């Protein structure tokens, strides 16, 4: 299996997904499953912390596209934080910063959810 892992933390009402390794065609479904199960449990305040993320492919970005509207429709959000420059570049190239709440640090995103 490819080097990719997800773990979920709870910070107050927010679920934080720490993802690390390479998010590509093979590993995208792991992220999909995690997001799906959070949504199924009505856990819709989600932060995806990308601190350990080394690489992201279009398929990985597609998973976010597939679920953002559902989550926002339910009154929640998926916020992204702590990307390294290379990963941010890919998000930026495809135009994600205009659609997603992207923060340098997880604490900013947490504050964002408290407002």
């Amino acid at each position, binding site marked *: 299996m490819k080097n990719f892992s997800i773990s979920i933390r709870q910070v107050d009402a927010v679920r934080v997904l720490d993802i690390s390794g390479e998010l*590509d*065609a*093979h590993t*995208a*479904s792991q992220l*999909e499953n995690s997001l799906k199960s959070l949504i199924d449990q009505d856990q819709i305040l989600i932060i995806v912390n990308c601190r350990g993320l080394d690489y992201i*492919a*279009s*398929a*990985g*970005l*597609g*998973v*976010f*596209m*597939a679920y*953002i*509207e559902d989550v926002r429709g339910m009154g929640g959000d998926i916020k992204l934080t702590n990307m390294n420059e290379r990963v941010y*570049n*890919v998000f930026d*190239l*495809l*135009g*994600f910063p*205009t*659609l997603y709440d992207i923060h340098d640090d997880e604490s900013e995103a947490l504050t964002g959810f408290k407002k």
Partner: protein
Amino acid sequence: MSNLSNIDDRHSRFELRTLLETSRLLIESQDPDFVLNNLLLITMGKLLVSKGMILIYKPGEDTYLVSRSKGRGWHKEESEINANVSIGQQETGVLIGEKHSELFEELGIEKESVLFNLKTSNYHIGFLCLGPKGNKQAVTERELEFIESLTIISSVAIANSRMFAEMRLINRRLDRKVHDLNTLLQLSKDFNLMVDRDEIARVFKFAMLGQMLIRTFFFALDVNGKKSIVSISGVKEVPSEEELDYLFELEDITHTSKESTCEFLSENNIQLVIGLRFQNEKIGVVGVGARANKQEYTESDVNFLQSLGNLALLTIQKTLLLEERLEKQRLDEELNLATTIQRGLLPDPLPSIEGFDLAAINVSSRQVGGDYFDFIQTPDGGHLLAIADVTGKGVPASLLMANLQSMLHALAPIDVSLGEASGSINNIIHDNTPADKFITFFWGKISEDGSRFKYVNAGHNPPMLFRDGAEKPILLEQGGVILGAMPTLMPYEANEIEFKKGDLIVFFTDGVTEAMNPQQTEEYEEERLIECVLKNRDKSSQEIMDAVIVDINKFADNIQYDDITMIVLRVN
């Protein structure tokens, strides 16, 4: 006097410093807005005017955009002015109202205003317009010179920042292209490792969503005429069968309109539908919804969609072919097994019957066939001999052949007459097989002492009995109708012959007499068979049979279309 020149000096120094500072400020800035705003404020302050505008020339439309406007009464910011500016005017550094009254009128500015050209050596950027001075005095030569210097510096700064912005845009487009190519390359590698069609379709979907910034997507495939959705996202309802048909009939690249008659397309705001072809046949359709950044699909997006779509399509096609190959392999293995089983149903080795010389052969044109022959010893010490040909070839024929074989073996130990048994067999076959399946069947029983041969011919090619001295064979024809065609209404009639020394019987199926010449114009026929047998009349059964086979192969140039079965029985 000295006082005046002192003031002059101070003026000069002040202006020089302003120029120097402004130029540094402007040259270092990569923001055209900042440059323009500063230019306007500095010059308005310098001339003490209450109205000022920056006009930016739009070459494509030949109009001027009011980029900045300060004070009252002039055009508002962001408005556009149609003005006829001659090439000469576009190249002149400073324009004053007295000489260019028409232009000033068109721009809606007083004739005491001044236009400073914003231009580089290559092109005209626009104008800096400064209104009349508050004290109504004319603009001095010195002031004109100073402001012209500032506009020149600003023009260079604007040109630079424009170039910089353009480079940044080009760079970003390049980065995007590189990313697109990387995505294609990476996915072609990823797809290569995948055999699960669902996974391929899912990865394709996510790559599309991420790459195109969309939420609505569908991918439909036509596998052997059956159209279905293989992956989908963000739609309210999957398309109906009619809608799927409609999607496959669209042009290969269709930018759908809002008024699309297809409910599936309009309901889900699908904006672009792309047909994917494999060997020129449209077997896939991809549709994408509105982009989250509100952008239209460009030609390069369409190209990317097509490339990625084709990649997914080929990968899925590959898995289908792989499955087909595995299935074929499995069938081949089964057929090989069937061949072995069928071989086992034929007598091997041939039994030896005292007083007779026996030879037999069975060659299937396929792995399994519908021809059958057998020798079965009966409890009374006699021998049953059978030959049969099931209509058709291959597996269906072989099943019926096996059925017949088991019936004969079940009947052999029972003491029933050949005629009655033939009737029963016919009824069973008629009841259990489709109307178009028949068996031509001949069987006979060699008496226990080997002196007599009782037989029934159910529509089979009559075996030929060659007697010593006779030029023509006797045909063993008596019996009844072909097996399986109709229920037994008339009993099968058995006939009996006495064997004589030297008698030779040749049993065969139609694969022998209907063997074709290479031109497919002529059959081997009975004549040639008789001729060949007579020519080899005195040889052993095996030798006679071999001679016939060699003769047929020569006639047909070794091409076999039908199963061939032959028995040669010689009375010693």
